[in-house]
């Protein structure tokens, strides 16, 4: 429930960002993020809200684990939680 999932911002309309999560586009609310977010930035999504703009450095390390988990079957406990984070976003 606190793991979140990172994604890359595609475009922004007011307080909603269209975010690419490993090939899946979803809308994420921006009211909680504490830095300006622009297309191309990475954000951490948790239950439908961006809670952090993730600096570009080290991002590949962060993405690697999620990429693996998103491709696991939902019978994997941790993978199911990460996939649940995507289900909380608007399509």
């Amino acid at each position, binding site marked *: *429930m*606190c793991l979140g999932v990172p994604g890359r911002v595609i475009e922004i309309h007011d307080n909603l960002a269209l975010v690419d999560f490993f090939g899946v586009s979803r809308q994420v609310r921006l*009211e909680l993020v504490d830095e300006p977010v622009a297309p191309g930035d990475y954000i*951490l999504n948790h*239950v439908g809200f961006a809670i952090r703009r993730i600096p570009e450095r080290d991002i590949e390390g962060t993405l690697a684990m999620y990429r693996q988990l998103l491709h696991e079957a939902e019978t994997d406990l*941790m993978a199911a939680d990460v996939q649940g984070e995507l*289900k909380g976003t608007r399509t």
Partner: protein
Amino acid sequence: MSASGTERPGEAGASEASLSEGPEGTAAERRPRAPIIDSATSELKFRDPDRGAALAGALAQTVAGIGRAPVSVMHVCGSHEQAIARFGLRSAFPPDLHVIMGPGCPVCITDQPEVDEAVALARQGVRIATYGDMVRVPGTAASLADAEAEGARVDVVYSIDQAIALANAAPDPLVFFATGFETTAVATAAAILSGLPANFFVLSAHKYIPPVMEIVAEMPDSRIEGFVAAGHAATITGWGVFEAFVERHRVPVVVAGFEPLDILAALVRLAELIRDRICTVENLFPRCVTREGNLVAQRQLWDVFTPIGGRWRGIAHIPNGNLRLRDRWSHLDARRRFAIDLTRLWDDAPSSLSQQCQCGDIMSGRKTPADCALFGADCVPENPVGACMVSSEGTCRIWHEYGVQHR
């Protein structure tokens, strides 16, 4: 497990692993008390195996350098336990280092009377929406799933936005049973501040992590010599929130991310701090955590919620550990909007099994699932006795799913 014939497809691997010491005897007999290792899933999956091996070596050396054994440290995050179990990290820990999961599962620490309130509302005909695992968590005698089986309307959502969409689609009152730590409470706060449908109400069981660390650190039988703080909760609160804690309790805190290498690196640093008797907060997750945290989110959190003392399931009364809606939002507060009748629920006695549940001692770090006679025998994910076997972030569920066991 297998013997009871209740496992569902896809769990055979974990079950077989749990039963590898033979299906005979009670759970307690099967699990002699000894250092923890992982078994079936213990193949390490570091994205940088050389760095993983180097960190594991440094951890062994540092723990040995402390000069006493065992050394116990606690993390307070279900996602950390998932990563430790999922990636088989315990096999990379030296046997003298006990890494214990504390009260880091928001579903698990939601107290029975809080679940009872949601169940009572559901039975009174009020539609309930809540995060997935909450549905199966037992209250005093019943869960929301029980109420749903009796005809109550209970919806699982993955975000408060989805609950709002449900309320928008039908005119009936909808109560969002809001659970989770500060990472999730900020989402509830932001949704409230941006405006809710008139038929939307909030039953807050949100919890705030920093106060419970105080209680666990003060427990007279605590063996905890250092804490690993949860990276994403600290993304909200900032690491500075732990400075006063470290000062008061004279134990180091290291903030950690969630990747296997993040966790190993944090444990190495924590072991060094214990070895060198340095009580400080160190942030090993700087890409997400700053000293002051996310001030925008904090402002919304405290605009909507006020901290109040309350019980955390099986652990203790935690001063300032619960988040209640401020008076300004009382018109949204399900506790004020509805007369919640709990008396009927308390006519049902809790099951005798639930009285043997060890969740409280497990969540406060005094026991592990293997110390519980019910674990994997009378208490399994399909038929859980305690909340820790329900939630994907519960210690018992994680150990069961990933085949963590004692050697």
